């Protein structure tokens, strides 16, 4: 490693630990001192659906930064196949297996046939 000395990396790791702890445990710990309104509490039940879709959709539709619905992007047919399977059977392992299978199939065909 050029540049970064061991002490610098250790400091960086410490700051990562602190940031992780503050964001993940912070809200759980201030619970006595902070009471959210009923509206906010009700709104937060939509947080999982929103957060996960916000994580997943860019990875699937625009892995290179911009919206890519061409067949050169194997991620969207893979995610679609996985989602259709999951609507039918709620089986996480099966969903990952089918998705990765379709992903490999589409990556192979685009690298072989140049689609």
């Amino acid at each position, binding site marked *: 490693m050029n540049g970064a000395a061991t002490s610098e990396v250790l400091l960086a790791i410490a700051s*990562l630990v602190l940031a992780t702890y503050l964001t993940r445990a912070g809200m759980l710990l201030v619970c006595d001192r902070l009471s959210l309104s009923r509206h906010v509490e009700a709104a937060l*039940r939509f947080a999982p659906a*929103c957060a996960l879709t916000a994580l997943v959709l860019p990875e699937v539709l625009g892995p290179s930064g911009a919206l890519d619905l061409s067949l050169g992007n194997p991620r969207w047919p893979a995610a679609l196949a996985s989602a259709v399977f999951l609507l039918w059977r709620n089986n996480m392992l099966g969903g990952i297996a089918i998705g990765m299978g379709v992903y490999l199939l589409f990556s192979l065909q685009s690298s072989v046939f140049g689609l």
Partner: protein
Amino acid sequence: MRRLWNDPAWRAEFDRGAREMLPAFPGILAWGLVTGVAMVKSGLSVKLALLMSLLAYAGSAQLAALPLIAASAPIWVIGLTALATNMRFVIYGAAMRRWLTQYSARRLSLLGYLSGDFSFAMFMNRLEKEGPFQYRDAWLFGVTSMNWLIWQVASIAGIVGGAFIPTNWGLQFAGTLALLPLVMPSVRSWAGASGALAAGSVSLMGSAWPYKSGLLAGVVVGIIVATVVDSFASAGAEARS
């Protein structure tokens, strides 16, 4: 902790949580492996990479910090970047806290530190289905410990075997696929589906914004849209009855 561990009811919930986390292992394995490889490829020594993996349990924040560390960026820049990348966990914490108020600060500290995207979504899904169940802390510890264990095994394998593991095979996509089944239950309502769609769209548009702010904006906009659609839907249901 030992007292809890010896309580059979507590243990049963812990085991159940660990078991329910297990099917996600290919996704977490792939993700951890990629992060491990990225740490050594960025120039960290094996020793420091192991230390970072074991202490800073924060996938996306670690990845964001690596280029900054390699470039010897000032420590406050690294800290702020890690804070910003982790911002969604503040929203998760706000959503979870009302169900965890009875537990001690020490237990919540550990639980919070170990929690992640999976445990949050699984917790809220189970509450939606079963209501406030008993031994929530035990179940959450089961889920998060299993997640931590799989992640560390994969990440350490990535650090040690970094040179032999190809990162251009789309391995990390398995991690994305592992999140899909957790979205499914909540998009069956109009409110959940429209919120998710809005969140995903904003996040996609803002995927190039700095500090994952597009992701955070997506979550906030999605929650607002879902709430508005939900209030229209319940007003419509009242008008019909």
